[in-house]
């Protein structure tokens, strides 16, 4: 068997070294990109979670509205649900009660689609 030329051993070790260096650099770059992506991902996740809780969860909207009507002492409000919309129709109510109810609605995260307000009535469509 012929002897292995030591220069081939050196060349082989250099090739291994270069391969290891290149692979390590690629891996480091991938890691850096992934770390940046993770930061961005976390930022998106927090925003999503926050906004989802604020505007995405409409399941409690009807209960909240009913609670607000009671708090504003409005008895004669009609509440109907139509195609993912909650329609609130208040007639012949005091301006004070309407003002109190509207203040509560505006301070809550309720998606108002339509609103018609007069001194003694309020008509509102809320997204469910």
């Amino acid at each position, binding site marked *: 068997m012929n002897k292995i030329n030591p220069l081939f051993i050196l060349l082989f070790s250099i090739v291994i070294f270069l391969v290891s260096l290149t692979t390590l650099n690629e891996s480091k770059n991938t*890691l850096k990109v*992934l770390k940046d992506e993770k930061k961005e991902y976390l930022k998106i996740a927090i925003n999503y979670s926050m906004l989802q809780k604020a505007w995405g969860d409409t399941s409690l909207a009807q209960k909240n509205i009913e609670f607000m009507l009671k708090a504003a002492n409005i008895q004669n409000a009609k509440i109907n649900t139509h195609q993912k919309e909650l329609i609130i129709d208040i007639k012949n109510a005091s301006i004070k009660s309407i003002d109190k109810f509207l203040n509560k609605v505006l301070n809550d995260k309720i*998606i108002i689609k339509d609103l018609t307000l007069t001194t003694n009535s309020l008509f509102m469509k809320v997204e469910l």
Partner: protein
Amino acid sequence: MYKKIKNKNKLLYLTKTSNFSFEESVDLILSPELYWVRIFDIPLPNEKQVLSVVSTFFEDFIDVENYKYYIKKQEDNKYLCFAYDESQIIDLIKSAGLNLSQVGNIHFAQNEFKSFPENEFVSESSFKIDDSYYIYQDNILIKVPSSFISPLEVQTIDLELVSLSKYKISINYNSKYIDLKSIYILSVVFIFISAINFGKLYVSCNSINDITNEQAKIKEKYKMMPTIMQTISVLKTFEKTEKRQLNLRKELVKVFNSKKKNITKVSVKNYKVSYE
């Protein structure tokens, strides 16, 4: 006597005029014309220490800068010292028609023929190889003209019968600028750094896996959509809704706080506020 080793490769005798045609691996015996050999009394305990000073003993015969040295201890403070020109040997191997990678062990003729079987008809230690005559004189093998020896008294050595000694040299075939030791040291250094790099690569790959797992945990914790694209799409819808609703509330507050006393009706249609 020294230990004999069994020859695995074809044995060739290299002289300044050799010409071979072999393709298999070979071992070489260097003719005396390819090296200098002297016995020196040097008061040092071992070959290694002798090697470090031996060049000064050859200064009178050769240009010591171009030579390499090999030491064989004979007895206490007495050493058989060889000096050889590596580049000359490499050139001769090439000119003899051999490939450098074919060459296995290289031996000095000085060490290889001492135990050759003698017979009663030949002079005590003279012999013939490839039409050249050699004789041991004062324990040093020298090449002699044929006229010095009677051809009838000389035995021709069959290289097939020679058992090589353990005394051999290694030739750096590779470069004048880098020796064999440096090549191996560099190789080890590169392999060592490569091993460290692969270790770091392993850690890096683990970190990549960890990040992927962490993203899955984040997704679960914040109850995100199945894909990031869906999440971003829904997020944009939420942002749009928030912007519209906050603007709507601002507009309504503006209307409620306006100084106009005669507003009787406020309407919101398509996120636009109007009043009468």
